[in-house]
């Protein structure tokens, strides 16, 4: 187990290293950083001095090492446009994105999983067919369209939910949260549905096909032959066996949710990192773009690591070190 985690950690570090390399390349080669930082009236000498001060004359290796070192302690430099530390700006917007992503993921899982189980168990039921048809819509409609439709219906027509922004937030020592006010929750509803709908249908379809698969296995037949109650068979035996793929996909989807929040945040003017990233792209604000990239990669890596560890918890066959000791008996 420990060896496994260490191996995974090393792999994660490797991934992060490559992402840092991409971010650094972007930094160094997309436009001239000095040019971005100074006005047109700055003289050539001043520019060269700045170049020297920023260490842009050092060998690339040294520059990259410095970049990685700084990133590791959370120093991503100054935003070209806002002249503020990027880390500070990201941190400000992180809670909005994370809260939105979390609620979307919980929504997708809490609704998608039971729907998947239901459609798996009642394959020919009317409700199952209905769910499957609906899920096609979730898969095929683009996110922004769903968002706009929701806004049209609930904000414009019915006027029950806010069409943009986070509503009122409560500041918990720097972490501004939606979770403590009714208003905040109301503001979360539509963006979360918009962001989570695709994942919901994905999870539902995955759970359904996994359930169908598992219900055909010999051990389920044998469980029936032992006279176990249906509930024990369906939920204790079958559902648990679908968990490994479901955990994988859900984990990966959580990463995509955070990444895809860009679109939803734009539609709902949600003041998160995604919105900031899009603005940064428009203004070629490389430090923000680069650090956003690194942060997203970091989330993916951490989530993957957690997913891998969850496998261990769920599936005893993966606990190799205990298995080899008694392999044959």
């Amino acid at each position, binding site marked *: 187990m420990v060896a496994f985690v260490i191996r995974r950690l090393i792999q994660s570090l490797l991934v992060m290293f490559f992402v840092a390399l991409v971010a650094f390349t972007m930094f160094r080669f997309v436009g001239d950083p000095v040019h971005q930082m100074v006005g047109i009236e700055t003289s050539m000498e001043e520019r060269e001095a700045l170049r020297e001060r920023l260490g842009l004359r050092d060998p690339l290796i040294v520059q990259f090492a410095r970049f990685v070192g700084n990133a590791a302690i959370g120093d991503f430099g100054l935003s070209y446009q806002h002249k503020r530390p990027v880390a500070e700006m990201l941190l400000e917007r992180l809670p909005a994105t994370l809260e939105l992503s979390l609620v979307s993921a919980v929504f997708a899982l809490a609704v998608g999983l039971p729907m998947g189980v239901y459609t798996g168990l009642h394959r020919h039921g009317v409700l199952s067919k209905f769910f499957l048809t609906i899920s096609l819509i979730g898969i095929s409609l683009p996110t922004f369209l769903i968002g706009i439709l929701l806004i049209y219906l609930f904000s414009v027509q019915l006027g029950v939910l806010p069409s943009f922004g986070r509503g009122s937030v409560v500041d918990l020592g720097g972490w501004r949260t939606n979770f403590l006010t009714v208003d905040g929750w109301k503001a979360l509803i539509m963006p979360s549905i918009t962001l989570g709908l695709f994942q919901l249908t994905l999870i539902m379809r995955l759970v359904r096909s996994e359930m169908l698969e598992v219900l055909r296995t010999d051990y389920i037949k044998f469980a*029936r*032959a032992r006279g176990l109650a249906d509930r024990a068979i369906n939920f204790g035996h079958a559902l648990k066996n679908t968990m490994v793929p479901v955990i994988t996909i859900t984990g990966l989807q959580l990463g995509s949710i955070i990444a895809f929040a860009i679109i939803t945040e734009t539609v709902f003017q949600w003041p998160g990192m995604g919105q900031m990233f899009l603005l940064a792209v428009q203004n070629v604000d490389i430090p923000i773009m680069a650090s956003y990239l690194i942060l997203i990669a970091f989330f993916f890596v951490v989530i993957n690591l957690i997913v891998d560890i969850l496998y261990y918890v769920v599936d005893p066959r993966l606990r190799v070190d205990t298995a080899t000791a008694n392999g044959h*008996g």
Partner: protein
Amino acid sequence: MATPLLEVRNLVVQFPTRRGTLTAVDDISFHIDEGEVLGVVGESGAGKSMTGAAVIGLLEPPGRIAGGQVLLQGRRIDNLPYEQMRRIRGKEIGAIFQDPLTSLNPLYSVGRQLVETIQTHTDMSPTQARARTIELLTEVGIPAPERRVDQYPHQFSGGMRQRVVIALALCVNPRLIIADEPTTALDVSIQAQIIALLKRLCREHGTAVMLVTHDMGVIAETADRVAVMYAGRIAEIGPVREVIKNAKHPYTHGLMGSIPAVGHDAERLEQIPGSMPRLTDIPQGCAFNPRCPHVFDRCRQDRPDLIPVEDSRVSCWLYDRASGPGIEVAKARVASTHADDLQEAADV
């Protein structure tokens, strides 16, 4: 006569398919007495597994019982509501399947699966159930059961897993076990051990067994009576000695040509040329008639039912009083058939 433990009367199992209804088990009747081992043999596709599944109420849809009755201790069980039949499964009729590697849920320890089964059918406390579990593991010959009880299926070898499966099938002392090729998937060297274990445990507990197998050696050593199935019907059924040494049905005679030691498939030693017809084109009359060296007119028209001959029952017109040549002549004819004759018949 006392009520038999299991009685199957005119059982018909069908599969509705797009091209029409297939009849996998066609009007078969047999019984199993308390504590008796009934061997069931026959080529692949003869309907052995379907019969077992129908008895325990686990036919996979769209397969269904289309006719007949299944009685357990005189009580009909083929038409019970799902929930009532579930209570009989495991408690009164246990099952053992072919592949021990896939019969156990990989995510739960063997102990948990045993405790779960015991608690489903009895009101033992978790502690009692666990104690019973360790007892059972000891009984099926698993070394160091106190340690093994918390291990997962993948930590057991195939043979050990089948021992666990046997423990699961026997854990609440069912009256009948349906063992569908319990050793086919195992190493030849382990097959005999597992059969010996099953035989010993069932004898000790007075459990009856319906033992489906391709292995004539196993039948010879284990069964009290044997049913030979062919194309969804019983060709011959009777005491094991009688059927093996004194086969009356031409098909059985071919099948029994030589009885290998435990661990050999009857299939591989198949002596009868030709193959069993598919469900879609079973010939009129006796299903065996295209391969039978003794075929005569009536065989191609009417389907024979089981006819009592000595201690056995045989579905073959040779033994019919009216149309056959007389029982002694029929027996002599069948007994004198050689592989060559069979070959000739198939060539015609």
